[in-house]
C-alpha cells in the first residue's frame, strides 16, 4: 500500500487502458452536437409520448395522444381555455334543440375543407359519429347518450339523444367526437355501420395519417420516437403559422430540459417541480401555466367490514381534518396546485376557492380529536392506505402517503401503507376491497355531470357508500338545469352532502406548467383534454 504511489509512475500496461478511455472521452466530446439554429418554419415539442397507442378518434384512450388529435381534428363544438362551463361553435355555427330536446339540429359551416381539399358535409359528421358508436371501443362509452345521427341536408345534421335530461354538449367537444372525412377513411377500409367493430380496418392508417379539418395533419407516427404534422393548406381558420410540427418523444425530464436549453425543442412538457424551479428566473425560457381539471384524491371506505373504525362517519371526518393540505401544496407541489372542495374540480359546476374557504375541510387537529372522541375512538385507530408505486405530476404517491401517515399520527391515527402495482390497485379499488386509496382523476371531458354521477355511482360503490335518494335527486336536477347560477347552487348542495359523508378527500388539483422557448408565443394551455391549443402557437414577432 505505501509503495503504490511510487510504483504507479512506472511504465506499465496502463497505457493501453488510458488510450482506450481517452478515445472514448474524445468520442463523447465530438458527439456534443452544436445547438442548431431553429428554423421557425418548424415547431418542435418535447413530450413523453410513450403511452400513445392509438390516434384513431374512435379508439383513442391515452393521455398524450389528444395533444396530436387536438391539432389535426375539429369537432362540432369546442371549448375556450378556462371556460369549461360552456361550448363555442367550431365546425357547427349553431344548434337548436327539437322535440323536447330529443333531437339537436346542427348547422355546419359551409367553408370547411379537409386537408386534402375536399369539402366537409353532413355525411362526414354522420360517418364519424356512427363509426364512434359502432366500432364500440373505449370512446364509445362517452357517447352512450347518443341514439343516432341523421343527415338533413348538405350542411345540416340531426343528433338524436336518448335522455335529454343528461347533458351532452360539452361531451361533443371532446377529442372522441372528432369529425373526419368519410371518403378518406372509407378508402382505407373504414366502416361506420353496425358490425364495424369487426369490419373496420382504418385504424392502422389513422395511426399514421389523419383525415380531419384541423390546422395540421398527421404524416407520420413512429412509436416512442416522434409524430410529424404538416400544415393544412386548406385550414378554415386562416393561415397556419408553421410548416411542420414535430412532437418528439423524450421520456426523460432531464433530457427535455437540456434539449430546451440547447434550443433543440421549443417546449418541454414533462419537467419536474425541481427543474421548473431552476427555470423560474431564466430570461430565455417562459413557463406556460394552466390549471388542469385533474386531481389527486384519497378515499375512505364506509364499510365497517373492511375497517370498523372507518365505518363511522366521525372517524372519516377526523381523518379529513388532520391532513396538512397547505403543506402538501406549498412544498411537495411547489405551490403549483389548488384544492377543490370535493369531487368537482375548481373551474366546473360552481366549484371555486371561495367555496373551499366556506365548506372545505381544513387542518384542525382539535376538531379531529373531538370527532375521534365522538366516534368512541379517542385514542385513534388504524387503517390501511393503498397506493400505486408510481410518479404523479412531479411527485409520487409514495411521498404523499408518507406525508399523510405522519400527519395522521399527530391525532393518534395509525396508517399502514400498502404500496402495490397499478394493476393490483385498480383491481382492488374497482372491486371495492380497499380501506383507503390515494389515486388520480383525469376526466374525459369537462362536463360536471361526469364527475357528479361517478361520485354517486361507480366510485360510491368502491367506497361502499349507499347513496341516499335525495343525493341522487340533487345530482339529476343539477344535470338537467340549464341556468348556470341555479346549476352551481345545486352542485354546491351536492358537494355539501359529500363533505358530510367524508368518503372523498381531495388533496390537490395541479397547475400544469410547460416550459417554452422565447422563439414561440401564444402557447395556451387548456384543460379540455388536448392540453394545448396547437393552432394558436406562433413564432415570436
Amino acid at each position, binding site marked *: 500500500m505505501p*509503495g*503504490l504511489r511510487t*510504483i*504507479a509512475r512506472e511504465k*506499465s*500496461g496502463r497505457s*493501453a*487502458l488510458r488510450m*482506450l478511455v481517452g478515445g*472514448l*472521452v474524445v*468520442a*463523447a*466530446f*465530438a*458527439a*456534443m*452536437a452544436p445547438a*442548431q439554429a431553429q428554423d421557425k418554419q418548424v415547431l418542435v415539442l*418535447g413530450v413523453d409520448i410513450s403511452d400513445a*397507442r*392509438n390516434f384513431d378518434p374512435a379508439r383513442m*384512450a391515452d393521455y398524450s395522444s389528444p395533444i396530436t388529435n387536438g391539432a389535426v381534428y375539429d369537432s362540432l363544438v369546442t371549448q375556450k381555455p378556462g371556460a369549461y362551463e360552456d361550448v363555442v361553435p367550431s365546425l357547427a355555427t349553431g344548434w337548436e334543440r327539437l322535440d323536447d330536446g330529443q333531437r339537436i339540429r346542427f348547422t355546419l359551416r359551409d367553408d370547411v375543407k379537409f386537408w386534402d381539399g375536399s369539402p366537409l358535409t353532413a355525411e362526414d359528421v354522420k360517418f364519424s359519429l356512427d363509426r364512434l358508436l359502432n366500432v*364500440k371501443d*373505449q370512446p364509445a*362509452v*362517452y357517447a352512450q347518450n347518443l341514439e343516432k345521427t341523421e343527415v338533413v341536408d348538405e350542411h345540416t345534421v340531426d343528433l338524436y339523444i336518448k335522455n335529454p335530461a343528461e347533458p351532452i354538449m360539452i361531451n361533443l367537444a371532446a377529442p372522441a367526437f372528432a369529425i373526419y372525412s368519410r371518403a378518406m377513411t372509407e378508402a382505407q377500409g373504414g366502416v361506420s355501420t353496425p358490425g364495424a*367493430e369487426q369490419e373496420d380496418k382504418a385504424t392502422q392508417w389513422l395511426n399514421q395519417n389523419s383525415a380531419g379539418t384541423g390546422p395540421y395533419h398527421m404524416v407520420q407516427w413512429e*412509436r*416512442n*420516437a*416522434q409524430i410529424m404534422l404538416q400544415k393544412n393548406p386548406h385550414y378554415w381558420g386562416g393561415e397556419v403559422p408553421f410548416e411542420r410540427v414535430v412532437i*418528439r418523444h*423524450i*421520456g*426523460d425530464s*432531464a*433530457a427535455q430540459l*437540456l*434539449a430546451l436549453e*440547447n434550443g*433543440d*425543442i421549443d417546449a418541454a412538457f414533462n419537467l419536474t417541480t425541481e427543474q421548473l424551479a431552476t427555470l423560474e428566473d431564466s430570461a430565455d425560457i417562459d413557463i406556460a401555466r394552466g390549471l388542469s381539471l385533474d386531481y389527486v384524491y384519497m378515499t375512505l371506505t364506509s364499510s365497517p367490514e373492511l375497517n370498523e373504525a372507518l365505518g363511522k362517519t366521525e372517524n372519516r371526518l377526523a381523518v379529513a381534518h388532520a391532513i396538512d393540505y397547505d403543506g402538501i401544496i406549498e412544498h411537495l407541489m411547489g405551490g403549483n396546485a389548488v384544492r377543490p372542495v370535493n369531487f368537482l374540480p375548481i373551474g366546473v359546476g360552481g366549484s371555486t376557492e371561495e367555496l373551499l374557504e366556506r365548506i372545505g375541510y381544513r387542518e384542525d387537529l382539535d376538531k379531529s380529536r373531538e370527532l375521534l372522541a365522538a366516534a368512541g375512538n379517542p385514542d385513534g385507530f388504524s387503517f390501511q392506505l393503498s397506493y400505486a408505486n408510481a410518479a404523479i405530476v412531479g411527485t409520487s404517491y409514495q411521498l404523499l402517503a408518507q406525508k399523510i401517515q405522519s400527519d395522521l399520527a399527530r391525532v393518534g391515527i395509525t396508517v399502514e401503507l400498502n404500496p402495490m*402495482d*397499478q*394493476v*393490483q390497485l*385498480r*383491481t*382492488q379499488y*374497482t372491486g371495492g376491497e380497499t380501506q383507503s386509496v390515494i389515486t388520480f*382523476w*383525469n376526466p*374525459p371531458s369537462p362536463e360536471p355531470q*361526469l364527475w357528479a354521477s*361517478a361520485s354517486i*355511482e*361507480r366510485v360510491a360503490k368502491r367506497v361502499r357508500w349507499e347513496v341516499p335518494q335525495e343525493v341522487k335527486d340533487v345530482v339529476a336536477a343539477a344535470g338537467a338545469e340549464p341556468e348556470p347560477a341555479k346549476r352551481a347552487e345545486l352542485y354546491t348542495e351536492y358537494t355539501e352532502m359529500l363533505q358530510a359523508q367524508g368518503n372523498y378527500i381531495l388533496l390537490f388539483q395541479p397547475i400544469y406548467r410547460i416550459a417554452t422557448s422565447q422563439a414561440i408565443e401564444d402557447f395556451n394551455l387548456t384543460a379540455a383534454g388536448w392540453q394545448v391549443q396547437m393552432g394558436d402557437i406562433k413564432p415570436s414577432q
Partner: protein
Amino acid sequence: MIRYLITRLASMVVMIVLATLVVFLISHLVPADPILAQLGDMQAANPAMVAAYRARWGLDLPVWQQYLIFLEGLVHGNFGVSISTQRPVLDDILQYAPATIELSTIAFLLSVIVGVPLGVIAAVRRDSWIDHVARLLSLIGVSAPTFWLAFVVLALFYGGLQIAPGPGRLDVVHLPPPFVTGLYLVDSALAGQWDVFRNAAAHLILPSTVLAATTLGLITRTTRAAMLEALGQDYVRVGRAKGLKERTIIIRHALPNALIPVVTLGGLAYAVLLSGTVLTETIFSWPGLGRYTFRSAVSLDFPAIMGITFLVAVVYLVINLIVDLSYALLDPRVVRQ
C-alpha cells in the same frame, strides 16, 4: 457428437415448456386483472367493454386453455398481442431487444478487452502491485450497486462536468437511423450517417461502462485464477526447461488452457448482462428489453411476460450450449468423456 446435440436440444425443449408453464402459473396467481388498468375509469365500470377486452386477449377462457393457446402460437412463431402496447409482442421485442443487445455487447466486449489482459498480467506478476490493484478493482466492481453507479456517473459526467451526453440512445437533434438491425451503431454506419454514429457511440459510453463494472471484475478474477492454474501445470515447466520464451509459454500454451473457464463464465456473464440490464436501463432511460420486461411484469401483461420468459430461457439455454460446445473445441477431451 450428433447424438449429444440431439439430447441437449430435446432437453432444451422440455426446459422451455416447464419454464414458461411455471411463469404462466405464477403470473396467473396474481389477484389482479390487467384489463382494468388498460381501460378508462368509466370503461372499467362498463361490463360490456370489460368483457369485450377480456375476450380480445382470450382471458375469458380457462387458464389451461390459455396456456395451450400460448404454446400453439409459439409453434407458429406468434407470441400474441401485448395488452399494454396493443401490438404484437414480437414487434415489441424486436424494437426493444436491439437497444439491450447493443448495450450489453459493448459492455461485454469492454470487460473482456480489459479483463482478460488484466487477469493474465495479474497472474503472471502475481503479488505485484498490478495484481493487488486488479484484485481491489474487481472486488469493488462486483460490490458496487449498478443503479447507484449509474446515478453517480450520470450526476458527475453529465450533470456536473457536462462532458458526457445525457440519458437515452441519441441526442434529441438526431433521429434514429433507418431500421436494419436496430443496433444504432450498425444502422448508422450502414446508412453513412456518421454524426448519428458518433452520437450513438457517445451515448453508449456511460451505461456500458457501468454495466461492465461487475462483469469486468468477474472476468479478471476468473482469468487470473485460471492462468495461475495453467502456469502451474507440467507442460509449462517442460516448456521453461526447454528454454522457450516466457511470452511464448504464456500466450501459446498457458492462455488457451486458461480460457476454458473464462469462456464458461463469459457466456453466463453475457446471458446475465442481456437479462439483467433493467437497473441500468432505468437510470439511463434506455429503451431496452430490461425496462420492457419490468413494465410488462408491473402491468401483468401476460403475452409480453410469456414472450420474454420464452426468449430469456432460449438465450440462457443456447448460450449454455454454445459454452459447452466451445469447451469441446478448446479441449477435445470433454466430448470424449
